[in-house]
């Protein structure tokens, strides 16, 4: 198994390791308050990781201040987990990599497997002494922006990891969310649809590397091309980015965090609807 991924057994053996910091990141940020893995702290993907004014991430200085205030050191092993099959934990994983954290890992199966296995969850919030964390500049080899997506149509692997109904334009959002949003529906022309969920087992763990390779190959993915993954806001595609970049070891894979909420609101860009990728 990739060192980027740790098992529940590994986690249980390292809960009291002073150099390992467990961090829960959920779509529903209130879940942590109910309970969480012992000694785990929380990051709020919206309050902590997004700029308060612009649609963008906090900058390196702000990220440094955030991690310093949460008691995380540059040489700590950060283990991320969360609900929704690790969507937002994978997003945070990609975010930590973006800012150059050396040793970051994802708990396979996340919160769901932990719960279904009946493992201990507690409500006590751990106290961690402040540190002096220094983030690196963003590694933009991991992050795609809209202009690169437009210029990649018909050239790079564009992977739309949303559900088939969202890809085709029959839904505008995942089915556990109200179908709101002013943007149009559809997908980026020539993008292939490989739903993130096909990479996960029912308990939230990732499928084997061989199964993942076959999944992507069968969907028409070209392993020799550069890749941009996207979804609606970049969290499900972080899950797929993790599969491609961390589990399958592909080096030229970017996550487009603007994703469909940005692309589907742009004026003048090409859009495809229906179940087929569409043409250039």
């Amino acid at each position, binding site marked *: 198994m990739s060192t980027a991924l740790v098992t529940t057994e590994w986690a249980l053996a390292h809960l009291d390791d002073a150099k390992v910091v467990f961090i829960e990141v959920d779509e529903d940020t209130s879940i942590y308050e109910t309970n969480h893995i012992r000694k785990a702290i929380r990051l709020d993907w919206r309050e902590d990781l997004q700029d308060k004014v612009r649609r963008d991430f906090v900058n390196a200085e702000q990220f440094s201040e955030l991690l310093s205030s949460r008691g995380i050191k540059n040489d700590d092993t950060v283990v991320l987990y969360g609900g929704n099959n690790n969507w937002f934990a994978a997003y945070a994983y990609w975010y930590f990599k973006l800012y150059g954290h050396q040793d970051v890992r994802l708990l396979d199966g996340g919160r769901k497997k932990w719960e*279904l296995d009946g493992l201990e969850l507690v409500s006590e919030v751990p106290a961690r002494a402040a540190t002096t964390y220094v983030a690196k500049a963003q590694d933009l080899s991991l992050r795609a922006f809209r202009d690169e997506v437009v210029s990649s149509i018909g050239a790079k692997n564009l992977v739309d990891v949303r*559900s*088939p109904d969202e890809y085709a334009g029959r839904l505008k959002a995942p089915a*556990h969310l109200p179908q709101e949003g002013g943007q149009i529906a559809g997908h980026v022309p020539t993008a292939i649809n490989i739903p993130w*969920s096909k990479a996960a087992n029912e308990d939230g763990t990732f499928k084997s590397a061989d199964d993942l390779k076959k999944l992507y190959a069968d969907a028409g993915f070209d392993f020799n091309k550069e890749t941009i993954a996207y979804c609606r806001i970049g969290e499900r595609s972080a899950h797929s980015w993790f599969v491609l970049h961390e589990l399958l070891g592909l080096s030229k894979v970017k996550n487009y965090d603007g994703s469909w909420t940005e692309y589907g609101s742009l004026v003048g860009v090409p859009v495809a609807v229906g179940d087929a990728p569409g043409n250039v």
Partner: protein
Amino acid sequence: MANEVDPALLLTQAIIEGRVCLGENPATGYARLHDAGGDFVAEVPLNANGQYRFFARPATWTVKVLVPGKSAEKQVVVQSVGATKLEFSL
């Protein structure tokens, strides 16, 4: 998940919702939505009352619930917008 659906959503969206009980008590676990082809579409944790809710479209859907040590699934044909109830007793 709110206990009541915004009435405006009932006029425009096909909502699949229900409660999962373990004996007399609300269950702790997850509800998963699959489309007519069996493909996974969405998942939500059950709330404190054992309830789940999906926003979908008129079609044939399967809801599968996972609780520690148990699972169950039911199919439902949603023919129009509005709320469709699908309850589970495990």
